[in-house]
């Protein structure tokens, strides 16, 4: 069976709420142990763990583009020429370029991840991965692991500080990255767990990764480059188009009655998202509102809002900048959470308690379907991450994007790749107008007297094309290289080889 035929045998997406009809599937967590073995080198780890052809190895991406651990493992695989491995990192960044060689040599033949960009994405797009790329969501990955759909043989968990009992913590050490939320499922469900650290201490006061699940600790010189792990600061955009979008978004949020005591919100770390947060903050202060929580990847901006008393707590699955890491270490109201608690549809996730979420889009279509996985050529350049999870969970999901980026209209007749279904997208805010998903009659009713520039998505589409003209459609390749898995595991779209 070739890849195209195989993909057609996988369960297809049939609705964002269909998971509710299926009972949660849980396999047993791994056995716990009170002992942990210390390893001195990666070769020793490979020998000890008997890493061999066909195994599944997992990693997390909290060290982002500063990660050394996945690369260390990859180098050892390359030396030993182990074949047909299944890699399951929570994300893949440009720094993981060595994985391209492993793909080309068929050392790695299947990949599960939630987000990828850079050379590995290009290599997969060129059709070089023997089997499939499964592009999951941040909530879908833990669901896939806990259900046994993604059994992990060995989890290599980079951990900035580890104690002698095998407990781990991400907030301290040379490669401190804060919350290690995406590693929790790997820790609890992988057959074998190796914490890889460059900072071994006698005893940790605060533990995030419980040593009872840890089989091995591997101490290395360095697990990552601090400069690539966190950005110094994340900044509000100065771009006037982005600011206009942000101001209108905040106005909309206010008019929808979402700025109220107990409110909860999430935004990304991009400049426009932070500008929305800044504008919402102004409304909160003006109205004397105190929110319950802000969640997601946490930035300094939200840390400052929480410190200013605008939120009771921060729920943090990953820290985006140094300020967030510092807060994670010192602020008792800054709580870590697992990827499962964040977005797993079966884990009563935090996303289900969000009043609103601000999300981006590389494309959106007239049915409000959103693409954040590929560009309009079909080239892989991202992935859902928490997009689909938060869009489904939040009471109001808002896409903010320029209507036209450079010369290209962002609204399409049909998006190149669906990552988040239109049924979960409520609002699109652009610099030239705001479109409400007609399914959200309640929102339209609330906005019936609004002076905001409300338009239908068809009107915005026509407006965009009147400026840009109709872009030529490109010929597409028929060879499937991967699939986009919705958070319930069904296939919402396919990824194709690019020319």
């Amino acid at each position, binding site marked *: 069976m070739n890849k195209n035929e195989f993909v057609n045998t996988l369960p297809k997406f049939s609705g964002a709420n269909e998971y509710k009809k299926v009972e949660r599937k849980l396999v047993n967590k791994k056995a716990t142990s009170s002992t942990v073995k210390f390893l001195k080198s990666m070769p020793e780890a490979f020998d000890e763990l008997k890493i061999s052809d066909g195994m599944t190895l997992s990693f997390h991406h909290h060290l982002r583009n500063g990660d050394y651990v996945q690369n260390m493992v990859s180098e050892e695989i390359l030396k030993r020429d182990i074949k047909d491995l299944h890699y399951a990192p929570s994300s893949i960044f440009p720094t993981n370029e060595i994985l391209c060689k492993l793909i080309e040599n068929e050392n790695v033949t299947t990949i599960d991840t939630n987000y990828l960009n850079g050379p590995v994405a290009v290599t997969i797009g060129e059709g070089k991965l023997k089997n499939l790329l499964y592009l999951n969501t941040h909530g879908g990955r833990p669901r896939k692991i806990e259900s046994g759909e993604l059994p992990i043989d060995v989890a290599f968990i980079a951990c900035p500080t580890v104690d002698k009992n095998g407990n781990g913590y991400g907030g301290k050490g040379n490669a401190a990255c804060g919350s290690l939320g995406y590693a929790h499922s790997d820790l609890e469900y992988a057959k074998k767990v190796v914490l890889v650290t460059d900072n071994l201490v006698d005893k940790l006061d605060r533990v995030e990764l419980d040593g009872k699940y840890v089989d091995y600790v591997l101490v290395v010189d360095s697990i990552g480059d601090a400069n690539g792990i966190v950005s110094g600061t994340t900044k509000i955009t*100065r771009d*006037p*188009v982005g*600011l*206009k979008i942000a*101001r209108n978004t905040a106005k909309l949020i206010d008019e929808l009655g979402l700025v109220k005591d107990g409110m909860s919100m999430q935004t990304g770390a991009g400049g426009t998202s932070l500008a929305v947060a800044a504008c919402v903050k102004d409304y909160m202060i003006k109205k004397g509102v105190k929110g319950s929580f802000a969640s997601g990847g946490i930035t300094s901006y939200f840390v400052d809002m929480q410190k200013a008393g605008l939120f009771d707590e921060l729920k943090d699955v990953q820290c985006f900048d140094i300020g967030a890491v510092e807060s994670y270490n010192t602020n008792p109201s800054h709580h870590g959470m697992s990827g499962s608690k964040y977005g797993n549809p079966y884990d009563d996730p935090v996303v289900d308690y969000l009043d609103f979420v601000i999300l981006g889009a590389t494309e959106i279509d007239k049915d409000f379907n959103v693409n954040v996985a590929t560009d309009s050529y079909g080239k892989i350049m991202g992935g859902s991450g928490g997009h689909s999870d938060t869009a489904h969970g939040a009471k109001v999901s808002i896409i903010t994007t320029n209507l*036209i980026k*450079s010369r290209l209209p962002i609204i399409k007749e049909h998006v190149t790749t669906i990552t988040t279904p239109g049924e979960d997208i409520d609002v699109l805010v652009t*610099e*030239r107008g705001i479109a409400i998903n007609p399914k959200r009659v309640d929102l339209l009713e609330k906005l019936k007297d609004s*002076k905001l520039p409300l338009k239908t998505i068809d009107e915005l589409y026509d*407006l965009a094309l*009147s*400026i840009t003209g109709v872009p030529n459609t490109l010929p597409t390749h028929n060879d499937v290289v991967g699939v986009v898995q919705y958070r319930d595991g069904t296939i919402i779209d396919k990824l194709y080889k690019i020319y």
Partner: protein
Amino acid sequence: MRRSTLFIPGNNPAMLQNADVFGADAVIFDLEDAVNITEKDNARNLIHYYLATHSNLPMEVVVRINGLDTTFYQKDLEAIVSDNIDTIMLPKARVEYLVKLDEILTRLEKERKLTKKIKVLPIVELAISVLEVNEVVKCPRVDGVLLGAEDLSSDMEVTRTKEGKEIQYARSAVAMACKAYQLDAIDTPFTDVNDPEGLCKDCGNAISYGMNAKAAIHPNQLDTINELFLPTEKLITWALRVEKATAEYAAKGIGVFSLDGKMIDKPVMERANKILVKARKFGAI
């Protein structure tokens, strides 16, 4: 009637593409100071094709040409005069230049069979122009005056400050001349784009002298300008009450009456009316 005007360099495609989205009452596509001498041709072409092809033009399209004391203005006018523009902005305006510009525009409008008459916004930015401003406002096509404080300060050999004491006289002169002929008195741009508080203060100063609009050099300045150059909520409420009371007393044949213990006569009614016209035009009511 304007509250704000926004300068956009004529050779910047990305900014041209978004010129209509920032909420400026008029957008000034610049061919003069923002465009290097080596870029003039490019800018002319870019503005020409932008105006000819873009389906969403700003509320008012203004093009700042190079001064009539340069060798560039003729090519500027050849490239951009069409029904797609509303207004020409003339730098270093003098009465003699305005007369000459009117002649050229009249010829081009006739040759090109334009369906409308192009207006002119002179920039008063020379000491001599300040002295001439009472005549400038009487020139054909003049629809308002922009005070250009940077060049004026240079001409006056004074330091330009945020407080703006050095332009008090010019602000008064421009505002007085414009108000006398019911034209827009447009205040000079506030050049520190990273000082929103300074911008607010500067707007307040300009308003106190009678300026009724202000130029922006960055889109991020527009919200502040548009808000501050609109009548305040308190003024609008007062004007609405005056309007209502005027109608009620007029029905009884009474032309002068008292409201809140203050006499309301024709000048007060006219002031209330001006406030309401502006508030209605910009959607504040």
